[in-house]
């Protein structure tokens, strides 16, 4: 699949960007966690963020839905363009951003509610009341998350009774229900066993037909299997960004090469 993409889109400059990061600096209080980040997130593709622990992958991911706004003292500089609108601008409502950019976390975090209500949550907080519409979205999202068949008879059961892998797929369904344009995944399979992991990976390759995906992962295999583009981060900087095959086979930097060959990290 990666091969096909690399022939059809041979140059990065030809990409149709869904989001674009420009000269982004990010500060936790006084400490700078991201330095002059530039990145293109191509539409309806999977882009992976890799790099050694503490290099700022999570920090960068959480800029895309302005999660950092929740805590005092955090500061952005620079731009993240989502369909050419800078979402970091002060007058942009972070809640409006989060309705377009969903997030799936490292550990499954279903709410202590029913399966149905978990998926419907994003619609409920938007104030939507139409029963038919919500029913429809819940079913569609659960289908897209490859969970419908397993839960369709117990939508009213507590989500906490699901297995870890099912919970993570539920969280994906929850993220899909509001029809986001971009979904952020932060190491979504690191808390799961290999079988659950591969089902989530299958799911993500399916999803990129509908949405743009940005995923943080520690697994080189996962990045290689799943992503079309890969960005390598190092000490808060974006060291290298390229098509996944290129980045893995002909890395430009020594650090990238060491990392993808598993020599550190």
């Amino acid at each position, binding site marked *: 699949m990666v091969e096909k993409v690399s022939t059809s889109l041979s140059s990065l400059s030809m990409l149709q960007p869904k989001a674009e990061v420009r000269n982004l600096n990010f500060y936790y209080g006084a400490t700078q966690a991201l330095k002059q980040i530039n990145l293109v997130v191509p539409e309806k593709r999977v882009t992976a963020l890799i790099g050694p622990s503490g290099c700022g992958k999570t920090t960068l991911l959480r800029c895309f839905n302005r999660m950092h706004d929740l805590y005092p003292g955090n500061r952005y500089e620079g731009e993240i363009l989502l369909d050419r609108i800078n979402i970091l601008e002060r007058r942009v409502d972070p*809640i409006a951003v*989060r309705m377009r950019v969903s997030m799936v*976390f490292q550990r499954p*975090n279903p*709410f*202590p509610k029913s399966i149905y209500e978990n998926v419907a949550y994003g619609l409920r907080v*938007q104030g939507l009341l139409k029963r038919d519409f919500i029913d429809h979205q819940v079913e569609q999202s659960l289908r897209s998350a490859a969970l419908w068949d397993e839960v369709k008879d117990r939508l009213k059961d507590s989500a906490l009774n699901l297995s870890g892998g099912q919970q993570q797929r539920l969280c994906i369904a*929850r*993220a899909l229900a*509001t029809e986001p344009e971009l979904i952020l995944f932060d190491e979504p399979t690191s808390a799961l066993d290999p079988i659950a992991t591969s089902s989530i990976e299958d799911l993500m390759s399916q999803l990129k037909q509908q949405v743009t995906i940005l995923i943080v992962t520690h697994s080189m295999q996962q990045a290689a299997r799943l992503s079309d583009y890969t960005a390598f981060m190092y000490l808060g900087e974006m060291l290298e960004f390229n098509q996944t095959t290129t980045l893995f086979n002909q890395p430009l930097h020594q650090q990238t090469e060491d990392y993808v060959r598993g020599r550190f990290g």
Partner: protein
Amino acid sequence: MTNSSVQSSKLTRLTTHKASRDLRELAIHIVLFLAGFSCVATTIAIMYILILESTYFFQHISIVEFLTSSDWSPLFDPPGYGILPLVAGTVTTTLVALFVAVPLGTIAAIYLSEFASAKLREIVKPILELLAGIPTVVYGYFALLFVTPLLQWLYSFPAPLLSTWLPNLFPLELAGFNMLGPGIVMGLMITPLISSISEDAMRAVPVSLREGSFAMGATRLQTAIKVVFPAAFSGISAAYILGISRAVGETMIVAVAAGLQPNLTFNPLDSAATITAYIVQVSLGDLPHGTIEYQTIFAAGLTLVLFTLLCNIIGYFLSRRFREIY
């Protein structure tokens, strides 16, 4: 010194150290045990006395009469031994207190845990806890001398209308002793208890749940109400239960401000005695120990203890369930 004698003197030092440390640890162990045991022993002793003395009472008065008769007048002739009027007083004042404390305490907890900055929380929490440390007799006089007059004044406006509309429920004017004033004050008193425990329960909800909610585009209020509150609900309901048992056992406020007349009514505008108020009243009086009249307080006390015990047990299981979720 030869090498071997050095060895052996080292060994003696080591063994004496061990022996003295063992002794010390045994002593500490015993002291700690006694301290812990004294609490348990006190509880057992209280229960023992209550049950023993009530047995004497129940040898003379049937349990059925005690539980069903609606006349509580042990000191009159003919005496009545029905606990219901006292229970009604306790239930009414407790309900009034909960009516105040549950919303207030919950809102305060939501505010402190989900909205207030860490700095503000550090300031407000100790102040709230200070409220819980005010002696209850002070609250009692606050109810009698400040809240009740205020209520009387407020009540005087709708009173003419209300008392013509439903004269049985609404008196022409609010009596100086009533259950509403002390109930409200009792509610204010247990508000910090409820807010503090509820806040702990809400702050124990993992950040990942909140972030999951925010990431779906929820506001702070939506996150607090739709995610944090339900996730913490068993802890919060444990706080409510503890508040109930605190209100049920509260004595001075009602003794001072609710009047001491047993009165089978659930109308907070009436005056009435609670179980606790009755017990103080009799214990302070000059009835000789051993008379049936005097023994009533043990039967009343046992009722009270069983009731609060039940509340605490429910609270305990709720808070345990709440720990199990995370």
